[in-house]
């Protein structure tokens, strides 16, 4: 069993939902980013989704875009990012760690070389935000060669054909989108219709996590009650980073409190 499978099995026994925070590596600096990731792991994150900074993150809204630009302004290298990921892995053997990246960065490294680096750094999965399933073949094959899970997104209006397709590709978990559009905080509760979740489950047996617009414990509870295995939350955490850019202690304190509140609300018992 891989790390995702072990984690989901454990959570299922405990009757808990899976909470995956998303942060951009190097935002606002590599040093603080490491502290943020440690705080997330220690306070309820079941797995991590780490963004590799990109200049033109078009699947992301303004909050995450700004985080990418803050990180890029520090001029860290790709090599440094992977050194940090390796260190996080060495310190935390069990937690599944995935990266979210844009296609040009993968292509620029050389697809094979990129996935080899992922393997060497102890990563579990890769989600390429601008590679839809239809274009994923070469990335997918190379990822498999290096034992890296490929994560795919499932739109809220996916038809049978797509659900059938994703069932033969999806690994780790399926990232179910709450809504159309780009990432960002929403005040509304996006409950995916139970009928839609049932439909995805009919074709897929791996866990379903809801992402996009998740920003409070109530939404986590809703997601759990609608039959999902958990959530991914990014913009809300990055919003805290942005708000407390010059108050590191306060930033870490708020992030701890926030992730803890999401985790608590994921417990069904």
């Amino acid at each position, binding site marked *: 069993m891989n790390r995702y499978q072990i984690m989901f099995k454990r959570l299922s026994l405990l009757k808990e939902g899976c909470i995956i925070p998303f942060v951009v590596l190097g935002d606002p600096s590599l040093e603080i980013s490491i502290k943020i990731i440690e705080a997330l792991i220690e306070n309820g994150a079941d797995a991590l989704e780490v963004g590799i900074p990109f200049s*033109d993150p078009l699947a992301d*809204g*303004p909050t995450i875009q700004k985080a990418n630009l803050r990180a890029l302004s520090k001029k860290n290298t790709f090599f440094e990012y992977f050194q940090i990921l390796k260190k996080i892995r060495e310190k935390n053997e069990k937690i599944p760690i995935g990266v979210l990246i844009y*296609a040009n960065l993968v*292509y620029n*490294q050389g697809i094979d070389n990129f996935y080899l680096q992922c393997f060497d750094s102890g990563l579990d999965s890769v989600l390429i935000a*601008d590679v839809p399933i239809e274009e994923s073949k070469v990335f997918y094959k190379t990822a498999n060669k290096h034992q890296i899970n490929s994560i795919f997104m499932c739109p809220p209006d996916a038809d049978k054909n797509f659900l059938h397709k994703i069932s033969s590709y999806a690994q780790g978990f399926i990232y179910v989108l709450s809504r*159309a*559009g780009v990432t960002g905080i929403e005040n509304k509760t996006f409950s995916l219709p139970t009928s839609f979740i049932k439909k995805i489950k009919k074709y897929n047996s791996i866990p379903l996590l809801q992402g996009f617009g998740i920003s409070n414990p109530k939404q986590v509870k809703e997601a759990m009650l609608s039959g999902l295995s958990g959530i991914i939350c990014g913009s809300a955490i990055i919003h805290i980073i942005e708000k407390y850019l010059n108050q590191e202690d306060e930033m870490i304190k708020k992030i701890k409190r926030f992730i803890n509140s999401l985790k608590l609300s994921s417990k069904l018992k």
Partner: protein
Amino acid sequence: MYVPQILMPALFELEKNFVSAQEDTDFQKKFHDLLKNYAGRPTPLTLCRNLTKGTKTRIYLKREDLLHGGAHKTNQVLGQAMLAIRMKKKEIIAETGAGQHGVAAAIACALLNLKCRIYMGVKDVKRQSTNVFRMQLMGAKVISVKNGSGTLKDACNEALRDWSSTYKTSHYMIGTAAGPHPYPTIVREFQKMIGEETKKQILEQENKLPNSIIACIGGGSNAIGIFSDFIYDKVNLIGVEPAGHGIHTGKHGAPLKHGRTGIYFGMKSHLMQNQEGQIQESWSISAGLDFPSVGPEHAWLNSTHRAQYVSITDQEAINAFQSLCREEGIIPALESSHALAYALKIMKMHPQKKQILIVNLSGRGDKDIFTVHDVLKKGKKNESISDNV
């Protein structure tokens, strides 16, 4: 199609409707009727009377500047607006750099009763204020994009973001032969009449094909439009990228010759990027050429050496702009001035060679007169300073 998964159904829908529209005689008839009776096609092929004096070169200008709207952009927006209606979309999202595509989109939307919002980098809003006003006059909403470099690249990102949440009711009217499939094909097919007309006109006027066809390259729509009917002929196809302040300064917009293959804006093509794969900001005095990538068909024509790609600096483009104004009484767009500058270079290189050059004069330069005015004023100031020294 390198886009977020959420956009794939929208691209498939577009592809399906485009293919069926190409085979639909009613659609084609209506499109060609609009081109002829609304936009003003065919545009003339004008022989330059004075520019070539003392040489054996004959330079012709394909006058897309005379098309309604002032640039070749009008051709394809009419096609895309008709596609939007075919798909029952009521809103158009567009992006623009120089404002020419924005103006064309606003024209098509006003004519065909579509709601229109146009993303434009904050820098471009400032340098193309007259075009912003024209768009607004025709009922379009212009949204100023402050993210990133505040130019066309950021406007493109923002438009794609908008489309990913509104694709059920909106059509993204991409302005050039770039972006995810099927856009490069759609734009080429809706621009290819430029080449078809040119071929017919040059055969009528000269009874033979030209030696070279020269067009400027931002995303590459006017170039692919005029090239497409000559690809299998013995004619040199020359694309001119903006060298900006000079290739060596890094402040340019020449990804084909000075970038490398990458993935951006939904396509795999040549890109200006740093060693790490981050997209770099481009530069050109001409907002319409200020884009860090280029349409994928040009990348193919470059790799197969079927077309030759060169670059022209801001200064060379301004010199050509002034020459055409003075010698022929035509104010060209700064974009087209790049193509003209290269034609003049060829002419000066071989003044006694009998040759026919066709420059795609992709747009008129009214929008650029203030930019040119500022540059010339600055130049004069520097001149008088050095005179005093």
